[in-house]
């Protein structure tokens, strides 16, 4: 087609900029083509991930936080990101690239609302995290089993209802009793929550929306890793 972009004509910084635009516009096919082109130019899978995809999703996240983009655009961007990740994931594993970290995320017991939680999961994937999505209505045992199995750095819990949010405290207590609380960062979110509630149940942070969740996840992981190295 005459209007088709010839990616090979762009230099690498231009191509990366183009891919960030394509991600913003939710264009999965273009992202796949861009990822392949960068790999063809011998960029490492890790650099493709961080410089093109994660950096692009950062822009999407910031505009979502600021009310410029809304859920539909973010979902389409996340889908485009996912298409790129399908190429990169096996290569990242092969090359032993640094892991950004694993997140176990779920809606707590009694709560069946998962649109917000799924959005957070997608945005965290967009930031390069490996996300284990437990779905809805998870009791403490399910969270504990997932922490044992996947060894996440973050546990994310979501509740839409004022009646189900206290259960987050039950999960945190169970993590403590199992001796696993210090291994993970606990992030909580959902419409009726606030920072005071997060503090009361001894979560590490309350995240107001999906963009804040990603920012908080990144900064707390950096702090935790820094502390581990220093310690």
């Amino acid at each position: 087609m005459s209007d088709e972009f010839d990616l090979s004509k762009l230099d690498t910084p231009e191509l990366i900029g183009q891919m960030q635009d394509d991600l913003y516009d939710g264009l999965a096919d273009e992202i796949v083509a861009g990822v392949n082109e960068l790999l063809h130019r011998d960029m490492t899978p890790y650099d493709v991930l961080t410089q093109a995809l994660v950096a692009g999703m950062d822009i999407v996240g910031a505009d979502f936080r600021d009310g410029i983009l809304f859920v539909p655009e973010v979902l389409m961007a996340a889908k485009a990101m996912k298409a790129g990740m399908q190429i990169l994931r096996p290569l990242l594993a092969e090359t032993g690239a640094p892991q950004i970290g694993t997140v176990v995320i779920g809606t707590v017991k009694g709560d069946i609302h998962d649109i917000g939680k799924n959005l957070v999961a997608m945005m965290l994937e967009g930031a390069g995290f490996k996300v284990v999505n437990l779905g809805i209505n998870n009791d403490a045992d399910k969270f504990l089993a997932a922490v044992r199995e996947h060894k996440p750095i973050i546990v994310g819990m979501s509740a839409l209802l004022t009646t189900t949010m206290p259960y987050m405290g039950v999960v945190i207590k169970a993590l403590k009793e199992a001796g696993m609380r210090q291994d993970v960062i606990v992030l909580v979110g959902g419409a009726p929550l606030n920072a005071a509630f997060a503090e009361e149940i001894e979560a590490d942070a309350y995240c107001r929306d999906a963009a804040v969740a990603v920012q908080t996840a990144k900064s707390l992981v950096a702090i935790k890793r820094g502390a581990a190295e220093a310690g």
Partner: protein
Amino acid sequence: MTMDPLQTLLSRSGVIMADGAMGTMLMDLGLEHGASPELWNVDQPDRIRSVHRGYLEAGAQLILSNTFGGNRFRLGLHNLQDRAAELNRVGVELARQAVDEAGGGALVAGDIGPSGELLEPFGNLTFAEAVAGFAEQAQALIRGGADVIWIETISALDELRAAIEGVKGISPQIPVIATMTFDTHGRTMMGVAPEEAIKALEDLDVAAAGGNCGNGPDEILSVIAKMHSVAPDRVLVAKSNAGIPKWMNGKTTYDAGPDQMARYAVQAAEAGARIIGACCGSTPAHLNRMSAALGDRMARSK
């Protein structure tokens, strides 16, 4: 042409007082974490009627059946999807009984809430599946005797279209009230602005439209003002939460009290709303002050 009951009430001029919250009231009455409120239509009918009674005594002229989560998508999360017909029909019947016990006059709206899913291409639900699910619920609500269908807390225009199509496919005559939730930077979660919503509804057969739920009175008042500026002849609807939920001393409370909600009711009327009620966190005490504050602005029921 004969007027439907909603038109008749609207034709008496003034504001129609709708009711307040159902869900948060049922939680105060002991509804368990995550249980289906609709199941109480058959398991605890007295409690459902008591909530309706409280709002009717507080002056509500239009009450919503306890069927918000009564579509098969939501009921399916409780494995109750096969009881959709029963739970919706009984929900309307309970509201009707409460109205009759209170001496009649108030309208019963069959309440339809969102599917809880995203339609294609963002989610997995197809438009046709959504229409069929909402039609099934509407049929039961109408069979139960609803005067009006109220579709509420919707965030996507395609889902709203599917719901209206579902209802109108069952009954082209029944009046439909449609409200969306504008809780994200002044738009719905899916990015729909109030002006855009009211414009989209122009082509759809709805009797009244507006906003419900969300982050309290100020947000809804701005929604009404925006809708009124682009559609001054529309019958507009405001059904605000009683403020924002706050976690205090181990329980959740909503931060707008009866006095603040009374001020909101008057402001909503001044901004152009003709159907005014309250949503999450409100109680008959809030509604009492709201109807008192509206006073002569309210349409006479008889």
